[in-house]
């Protein structure tokens, strides 16, 4: 079913083309277009409710777009026979059955995409979960769940990686570990897209920034350009000023 293992990393470009996702009562993503290039970390920034998660879920075929499309290496996600070998994703670290152990979780996942059992062992080792591999996930800390989610993303050794708020709720060591992992994945030539609502984190991790608010593209830039062209002294200031009017306040609702 799956083609033989190719040599080297095939990192496709992610293209978001005129993407719109409308729910019954709200527009989550509004004619959004941007591209994500290989070999660097792209930060996907925006306030809560800006449409980051929805965009990522459309990218992974979980949510059907109202209009537009998202392509990875020129193809739609659902056209990959073994998608985990092309694209790895961490969406929600808590979305794992608490009654199952990490190793069993990765085992069934590997099976679906023809990934060998050796890869499960290697990946657990890479994220530092080898010793806890047989413990039920319900007993894991959030940091351990994030590591398991990252292991699941890395399982198929994919060229494209997508992480939704990977540092949320992590301790400083965990944040640093993720940051270094993201940088090394990009240095290996992979396409890395990370969403966050924290500019301070992206400042340390990302090379490019795609900033959205209320589902629309606000800016597609590099860290350096953002400061120089807008004339702000800090990135935080630039980001807050940019997203101010687009911030969806909790009371107002809105989809993530």
């Amino acid at each position, binding site marked *: 079913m799956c083609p033989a293992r190719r040599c080297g990393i095939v990192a496709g470009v992610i293209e978001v083309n005129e993407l719109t996702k409308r729910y019954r009562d709200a527009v989550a993503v509004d004619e959004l277009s941007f591209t994500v290039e290989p070999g660097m970390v792209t930060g996907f920034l925006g306030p809560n409710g800006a449409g980051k998660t929805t965009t990522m879920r459309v990218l992974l075929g979980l949510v059907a777009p109202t209009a537009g499309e998202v392509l990875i290496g020129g193809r739609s996600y659902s056209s990959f026979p073994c998608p985990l070998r092309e694209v790895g994703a961490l969406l929600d670290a808590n979305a794992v059955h608490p009654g199952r152990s990490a190793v069993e979780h990765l085992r*069934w996942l590997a099976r679906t995409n023809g990934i060998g059992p050796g890869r499960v062992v290697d990946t657990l080792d890479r994220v530092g979960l080898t010793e806890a591999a047989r413990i039920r996930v319900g007993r894991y800390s959030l940091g351990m769940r994030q590591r398991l989610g990252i292991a699941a993303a890395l399982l198929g050794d994919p060229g494209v990686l997508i992480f939704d708020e990977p540092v949320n709720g992590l301790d400083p060591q965990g944040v640093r570990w993720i940051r270094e992992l993201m940088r090394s994945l990009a240095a290996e030539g992979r396409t890395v897209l990370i969403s966050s609502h924290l500019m301070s984190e992206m400042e340390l991790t990302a090379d490019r920034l795609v900033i959205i608010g209320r589902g629309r593209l606000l800016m597609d830039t590099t860290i350096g350009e953002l400061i120089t062209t807008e004339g702000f002294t800090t990135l935080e200031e630039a980001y807050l000023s940019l997203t101010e009017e687009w911030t969806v306040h909790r009371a107002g609702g809105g989809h993530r």
Partner: protein
Amino acid sequence: MTALMTAEWIKIRSLRSTIWMLVLTVALSVGLAYLFGSSFRAGFDGMTAQARASFDPLFATFYSLTLGQLALVVLAAFVVTGEYSTGTISTSLVAVPRRGRFFGGKVLAGGLLAVAVALVTVPATFAAAQAGLGPHGTTFTSAGAPEAALGACLYLTLIYLFATGVAMVLRGPIPTLALLLPLLFLGSQGLGNVPRVKAVAQYLPDQAGMVVMHLAGPAGDPRFGRPYGPWLGLGIMALWTGAALLAGYVALRHRDA
């Protein structure tokens, strides 16, 4: 598709809740078969001559399956709703983005598991019931017994798949079980025999399917009899199952995850 089915079996095997339901299906069916058999044996002499003449040992043999099936249905519900209640469904659909393949893997893996459970449960239930019934029992080679046993295997497989389809539509464990358990439990407690209700209730999936297991009484009986035979009854149940699976597929295919 074999890979997807294996993945589904790993999911089932790696959870205590699903393993428990498998064990409970067999234990309830077999254990209660012995108890029901024994109680029929003990009460046999006290029955009226008419009741003794019309006593059907196959009724006493397979009655316990109406309770054992509850654990099997809970298993089917857990296998599907566990994905939604924990969010695992996102991971599953990211790994298998073609919804039809995911659906096929889940249904085939579950269906084959149900067949395997039935192939263990039905003979064991039969043997336990005969041990309980003693001299009032029957043998596997007696008239009607092989057909009833085959029907019981088909019944358990169909009820598992019916529950799978319903769970795919409802998604949550609570609505799924709140619909299925009263339906099946009341059925086993004679809902299908209340005259007014019977006219409609006898066409419910479990009520139609259980005729083949001799659980609905003789065809001519005005209270328990059915206007259809055992195989047509299983056919009615198969139609329900097909409809539930189709609805489950449509829900999975068209709803965002």
